[in-house]
């Protein structure tokens, strides 16, 4: 049975508990046997956020130990011992959660920062009409506690000398006659409490959550044999990371994390689309979501969107994702109307790169001044500095131009389609003639080749069968050499023969990372190297099946070149190896449903 907690494969220490469209999320504290509550719109908890609450079950006014079980419907906490007090939390997509139970509950504000205490609290206001109590948390928004059955009171002590709250806790008590409580907790980042809807029966909320998850699963094809349970967890994680429009975010998108890097990252939206082959129309919507934020003047798409704003840019993944989706599902979702709508936007985005990231040669060759533009933040392809023309980005742009041509054709713009395809072909020719050294693709800093053993050098395989056969064969050959890039758990992002290879503290300088493995294996697959793609994808999927939806892993506990024992970071930590990530889950779903071939 799918779930988290007692008797289950996974718990909520590394995986957060959430729901599609809910800002609230919960998780298990690493040190204490406690469920904790936060809000992804408000803060980055693992970066030391203040907006975190302990959920305590009380017996005779004292906290008692409990266990929990969580699934898509709800998270239920049960007290150990014969009293068996329970509290059950159901999230919703209406900026509200519900809690019911038969014991007293204490929801206590305790910052993730050592000594932070109740720093987030800025005030307590019981509504004059007695309907509930509002708590104000400054930049973290407000919460309104409404008792539907039982009672709610707030214990908050303000330290006048310090000018802040020393403590803040919400006490929930069962009705004395029914011995049960049922409360609604609303959250809003700005404005005033305005919920005028009904409070549905708790069981219906739970049932609706389960039904919503089941409906979301229809976006995906079945996983290969042996990966069905892992796929359930992956789909659930993606579902919990799907945000509704709100704040700065204009379209439903998928967060990278709930409790750490709580941003909708640009290229991740398209990566998720690749997996949505059960509903390619939804996959197309995912790809298009970022374009709601396109800069009118430059055509730029923001790289990271938070509830509070956006910034940076990321690689133009959209063309690759669209090509993959069409190859797997056909192009029925690309109606003439959609093509007309999106062709100008794609064109503007492609021209952004050739204008604002131009290598200055007068053609479409691009160069970047920051590795963050490519997403390979610490890849050795950038070790010689900037400006740098890197093969991964050039390949993405080739694919984007080709996708733009496809949309132009669908929009009835034949001349434009020819022009865009021509640009794509010419840039592809540049990539092959100037950036292929016979063994791998290379980067160039101001024209000079960069000597790098990064996996990024092979990323142009994402162009699949558009690459010449000899290049495809060479790439497949290089990637399958054990002990270089290929490890028992998938492809390392830096060759293990490289003195730069590092398995800690870096992102793509050695670790085996989900999106890198996804891009490469998807590329091998559409290049016709389905066996190689399957072997690599299976290794990585096996690791995620075992560990959960974690972004990246060290393949060994000792450094392959020196034999030195690796000193891993002390958990828990706000870094890639620790919390579950929507990005990993999205990568898994494409690999497990499409690239892993049943043997």
């Amino acid at each position, binding site marked *: 049975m799918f779930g988290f907690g007692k008797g289950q494969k996974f718990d909520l220490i590394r995986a957060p508990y959430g729901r599609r469209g809910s800002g609230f999320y919960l998780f298990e504290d690493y040190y204490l046997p406690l469920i904790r509550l936060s809000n992804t719109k408000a803060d980055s908890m693992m970066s030391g956020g203040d907006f975190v609450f302990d959920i305590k079950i009380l017996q005779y006014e004292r906290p008692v130990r409990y266990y929990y079980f969580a699934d898509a419907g709800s998270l239920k906490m049960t007290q150990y011992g014969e009293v068996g007090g329970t509290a059950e939390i159901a999230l919703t997509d209406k900026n509200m959660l519900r809690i019911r139970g038969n014991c007293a509950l204490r929801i206590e504000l305790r910052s993730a920062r050592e000594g932070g205490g109740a720093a987030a609290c800025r005030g307590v206001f019981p509504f004059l009409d007695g309907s509930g109590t*509002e708590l*104000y948390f400054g930049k973290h928004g407000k919460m309104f506690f409404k008792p539907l059955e039982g009672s709610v009171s707030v214990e908050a002590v303000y330290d006048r000398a310090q000018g802040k709250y020393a403590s803040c806790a919400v006490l929930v008590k069962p009705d004395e006659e029914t011995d049960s409580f049922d409360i609604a907790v609303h959250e809003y980042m700005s404005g*005033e409490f305005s919920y005028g809807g009904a409070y549905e029966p708790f069981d219906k909320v739970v049932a609706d959550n389960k039904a919503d998850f089941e409906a979301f699963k229809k976006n995906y094809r079945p996983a290969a044999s042996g990966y069905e349970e892992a796929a359930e967890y992956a789909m659930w994680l993606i579902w919990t990371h799907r945000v509704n429009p709100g704040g700065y975010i204009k379209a439903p998108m998928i967060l990278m994390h709930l409790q750490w*890097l709580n941003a909708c990252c640009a290229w991740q939206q398209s990566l998720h689309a690749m997996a949505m082959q059960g509903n390619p129309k939804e996959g197309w919507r995912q790809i298009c979501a970022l374009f709601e934020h396109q800069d009118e003047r430059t055509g730029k798409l923001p790289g990271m969107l938070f509830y509070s704003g956006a910034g940076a840019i990321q690689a133009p993944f959209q063309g690759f994702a669209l090509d993959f989706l069409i190859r797997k599902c056909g192009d029925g979702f690309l109606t003439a109307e959609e093509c007309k709508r999106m062709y100008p936007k794609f064109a503007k985005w492609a021209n952004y790169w050739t204008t604002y990231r131009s290598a200055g040669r007068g053609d479409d060759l691009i160069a970047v001044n920051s590795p963050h533009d490519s997403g390979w933040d*610490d890849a050795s392809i950038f070790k010689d500095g900037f400006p740098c023309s890197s093969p991964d980005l050039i390949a993405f742009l080739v694919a984007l131009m080709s996708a733009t041509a496809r949309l132009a054709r669908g929009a009835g713009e034949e001349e434009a389609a020819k022009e865009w395809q021509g640009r794509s072909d010419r840039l592809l020719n540049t990539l092959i003639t100037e950036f292929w050294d016979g063994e791998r693709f290379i980067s160039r800093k101001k024209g000079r080749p960069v000597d790098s053993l990064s996996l990024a050098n092979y990323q142009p395989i994402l162009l699949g069968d558009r690459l010449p056969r000899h290049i495809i064969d060479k790439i497949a050959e290089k990637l399958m050499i054990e002990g270089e890039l290929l490890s028992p758990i998938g492809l390392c992002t830096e060759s293990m023969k490289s003195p730069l290879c590092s398995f800690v503290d870096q992102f793509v300088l050695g670790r085996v990372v989900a999106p890198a493995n996804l891009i490469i294996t998807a590329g091998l697959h559409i290049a016709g190297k389905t066996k190689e793609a399957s072997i690599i994808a299976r290794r990585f999927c096996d690791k995620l099946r075992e560990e959960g939806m974690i972004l990246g892993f060290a393949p060994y506990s000792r450094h392959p070149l020196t034999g030195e024992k690796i000193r891993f970071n002390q958990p828990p930590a706000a870094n890639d190896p620790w919390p579950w990530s929507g990005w990993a889950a999205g990568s898994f779903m494409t690999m497990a449903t499409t690239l892993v071939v049943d043997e």
Partner: protein
Amino acid sequence: MKHIQEAFSLDLAKTPLARRGSRPVLLQLPDGCYLGLKPAGNALPFAQVFGGTSSMGILRIQIMDGGKELPYSVNAGPFIAELITGKGRVRFAIDKAANALRMEGDVPQLRLSSPLTGANSVKYADGVETNLGGRVVHRILRGTFEFDDSWMLKRWSSVPPCLDIMAVDGRMEAACIELPADTDVPEITRSLDECAAENKADFEAFCDTLKPTDGLTAYRLWSEARKTGSAELACESYLFSDPRAVFELALASAEAGKSGITPLFGAVVLRMRDEGMLEKISEEDIARLREALKDALAWWRKYRFDTARGRYFYAYRDETGEENPQWFGEAPVYAPQLQERLSQLEAAVGALEWGGWN
């Protein structure tokens, strides 16, 4: 500049060389003078990955000779500042058109550096781009320069920036231009002295909108980053005598204070009525101000009015505009000064609705 009679100098540790409408500043910190940038609004999460910094000082300025740092004295007026050494001097001014800190001098070498990492720097043929605290392009207009833009792979950053500008024929000149991403670097079309003269003229025009005050107060109002808080904007309006200037501040205060903050702007509007300022404001602008005030009044009446007691109340300390009001107890708090502020707001709305100033 009819109200400002005396000349004044700047203590760059307290009052940076700056001007309205431009972000670059010259300021002094305990370890010397810095190129700085005025704050640009709330930083996004994880801004430090892209060069975000909480400090206003970005690059430390040093004067060098033969590898050794020269001590300097500072002589700063409101429009030109100088760093003076035994081997020459460097002059600074703000270039409004280019949004730049301009510098020129006859010292052997000028160094701009920072120990901070977390952003990328790029070297070009005619200058350098740094991304600490904001995107700044340092164009070398006269002299030669050295800059190491090596990338520290495992630190996700260029090496700490260190720009050395060497004089040629005894002269060096540079412009540190702050600009948004994906915009072209503007041409430098004016001399440093022309920039200073333009700033002086703009400052004098600004002073004409003020009540009589001292030069330093006027300079701070003119040069500092624009305030955004409703209460701050309302309070600042009392320093002005020009109807247009007062109106702009009243409107900004009202729009920033439509909810959740004691409405000080009501009194500002009543002042405008009583001093005949409203007559100088267009009907269209009056309408904008009226709507903002009505929105604020509607909010207080809907969310902070106790119909049983017939009084307004505060729900939270932050609504008072005070840092840590000791008189604030458990909500709801029925404060006398709040009743007064709302009376003023109601009267201001009435004044704007009935056109009583005509």
